[in-house]
């Protein structure tokens, strides 16, 4: 249900993983490479992961969410490597009996992901590059 991959990721396959007859709602989040960052024109991004630990942390996020919102199912996929503008870097799919839990758990997972999962993003702009989140 969690995956870190160099290959393109698609929401449909995550939806398929969480879909079940007990669920009445499925929420998906898709993170996409934007063309602009703080006024700079982004050429491409490079995502790097500490794969073994990042996979564990993603599994922890699923477990945390499932203990807060009983009865939900969640799938996460994060792409790593070089991504162009418009490509999908992250997908989260959450299925729940009712929509409120699905929205809440999806938001929770996105927020937790950027706090604890060891995945780094380098932006390559016109005329420079920098690791995001790093402020010397």
């Amino acid at each position: 249900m969690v995956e870190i991959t160099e290959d393109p990721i698609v929401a449909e396959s995550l939806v398929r993983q969480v879909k079940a007859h007990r669920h009445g709602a499925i929420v998906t989040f898709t993170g996409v490479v934007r063309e602009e960052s703080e006024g700079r024109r982004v050429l491409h991004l490079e995502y790097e992961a500490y794969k073994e630990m990042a996979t564990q942390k993603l599994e922890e996020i699923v477990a945390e969410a499932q203990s807060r919102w009983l009865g939900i199912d969640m799938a996460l996929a994060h792409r790593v490597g070089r991504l162009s503008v418009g490509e999908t870097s992250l997908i989260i799919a959450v299925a729940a009996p009712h929509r409120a839990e699905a929205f809440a758990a999806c938001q929770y997972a996105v927020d937790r992901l950027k706090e604890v999962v060891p995945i780094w993003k380098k932006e390559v702009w016109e005329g420079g590059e920098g690791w995001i989140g790093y402020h010397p």
Partner: protein
Amino acid sequence: MKLKISVFAIYREMVGKNEIELELDKGAAVADLVRELENVYPRLSGHMDSLMVAVNAVYVEPHYELKDGDEVALIPPISGGHHG
């Protein structure tokens, strides 16, 4: 004791490789390891404030006592999933 240290992202670029082997005294803590890294790789010094360290894929505190064979990772500030 001998330690294998995985290095990622900004730190990987600073040291120029993705894995470091380091010899430390028995009983050394994570804080000692960080100090030693700054000695061996002067480029790192002044850049270690926001560093987190993981041992065997679990985040640890600076006082954590290292053991022979521990798999250490230097974790720079995280940006994964920072979208939209």
